[in-house]
């Protein structure tokens, strides 16, 4: 279901420097899928465009969605001041989400880097329905010892942290952790900065395993109309008839081999 609505903030807290954790009460939770995202609109009228923020967790019974985001500018700074009972203007749920069924019975990597970690939580929850928990290997790349969401993730899989400063887990990025811990997988799901996704694309292609990567790009409409957020595709895209797919609607999740990043 795609709808723009004014929802209610259930709670919000800062869980790491500049990183905020907000629960929103909305019936959009009923249809939300792991890997989908919301567009959140600032209230100040000088900042008009929506901020795309991935869905971190879903509680259908409570009609609640959780988003975890980093303050990146005036819009997200405004969001960070919202508290319980405040309204939040959202458009959702958007995007295709991760293909959970591809993991059926398989050994998996969930790779999240920085603010790409949050969508891994709802994905890990969903994957528990299609494969054994010991198959769910969550590799989370952090800057430092502020390993936000780690406890939540540990409830749904084996978590291997990597930190840039080596303060927790393996020193380095998520692929360094894979090597150091001697891990392997049959399917990869990933979200994070572009250099990390490029490395994962190479890693998966070398091993000829599927990697479903969630991409980010500046967006204006969030619904596929403006063609602002495209990614180059290997084949001619069925909708655009050129080598471009829309991240907001054809994505944000793509099989790494399909995109030229």
């Amino acid at each position, binding site marked *: 279901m795609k*709808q*723009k609505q004014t929802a209610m903030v259930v709670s919000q807290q800062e869980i790491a420097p500049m990183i905020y954790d907000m629960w929103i009460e909305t019936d959009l939770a009923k249809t939300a899928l792991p890997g989908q995202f919301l567009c959140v609109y600032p209230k100040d009228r000088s900042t*008009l465009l929506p901020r795309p923020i991935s869905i971190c967790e879903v509680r259908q019974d409570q009609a609640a969605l959780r988003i975890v985001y980093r303050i990146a500018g005036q819009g997200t700074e405004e969001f960070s001041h919202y508290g319980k009972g405040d309204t939040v203007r959202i458009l959702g749920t958007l995007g295709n989400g991760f293909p959970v069924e591809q993991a059926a019975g398989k050994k998996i990597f969930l790779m999240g880097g920085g603010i790409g970690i949050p969508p891994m939580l709802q994905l890990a929850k969903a994957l528990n329905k299609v494969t054994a928990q010991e198959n769910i290997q969550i590799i989370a790349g952090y800057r430092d010892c502020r390993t936000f969401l780690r406890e939540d993730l540990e409830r749904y899989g084996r978590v291997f942290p990597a930190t840039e400063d080596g303060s927790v887990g393996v020193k380095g990025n998520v692929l360094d952790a894979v090597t150091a811990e001697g891990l392997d997988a049959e399917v990869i799901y990933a979200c994070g900065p572009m250099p990390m996704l490029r490395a994962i694309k190479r890693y998966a292609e070398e091993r000829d395993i599927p990697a479903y990567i969630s991409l980010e790009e500046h*967006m204006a409409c969030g*619904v596929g109309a403006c063609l*602002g957020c495209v990614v180059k595709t290997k084949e001619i895209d069925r909708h655009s008839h*050129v080598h471009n797919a829309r991240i907001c609607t054809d994505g944000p999740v793509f099989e790494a081999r399909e995109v030229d990043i």
Partner: protein
Amino acid sequence: MNTQTTIAGVTFKNPVMTASGTFGSGMEYSEFVDLNQLGAVVTKGVANVPWPGNPTPRVAEVYGGMLNAIGLQNPGIDVLMERDIPFLKQYDTRIIVNVCGKTVEDYVEVVEKLGDEPAVSMLEINVSCPNVKEGAIAFGQRADALCHITQEIKKHAKQPIIMKLSPNVTDIAEMAKAAESAGADALSLINTLTGMKIDIHKRCFAIANKTGGMSGPAIKPIAVRMVYQAAHAVQIPVIGMGGIATAEDAIEFILAGASAVSIGAMNFVNPYATVEVVRGIEAYMERYHVEKLTDLIGAV
């Protein structure tokens, strides 16, 4: 209360249209608004062949608006006619197709193909996209070039043509007169204003194309001024656009002389904007006992 407006012999149920490039071919927004409620859907610019557009980032936010340099990515006229026009035909709204090209021949090829499609009421000729190197803008910033392409297209167009003018000119009235003298049936303005944003921390351009077209409420006063100047310079009707977010904004353009208005970037901010503007115009007419919308055109 009569909200109808007529442009070059084509009657629209109300004056609210979508600005080319901000509404796709209507399909995406049909999930949010009832297209039957709109005066017309103006489709994204289409060329004779598919265009890949510009590299990303293609969009950036600015104070009270946005910059875009999509580069007129489009699937080409054949896909539009086979896929998008049939979709739009299902609705009781007018279809206006925005046409772009790199050469006069490109434009003519598209215009001729559309001549066989009676469901298309009018053609909007985009000679003002600031984001493609060749063609487009080159025709839109010099009066002689604008005259030439208008005349050529008129020779081949079965439908009435709307010339979409660039605001990046010294004298919009001169450009409006040039298009009228060359046979344009109507004008639409403003296209986007060329802008730039620089990321001072990365020290790079916010948009891969360096410059982008600026739209949004921030540009409205410039758009209203140009619509007023153009409407007072020519006899043909003018379609006004540029930062329209509300019915109040739309009425401001109509009072300035616009026979119809288009909602552009604000569709991105509020997917229900078009229909809300239709309802708001009706409310204004009721409040001030305006019987015919046409009584408001240029009534400042």
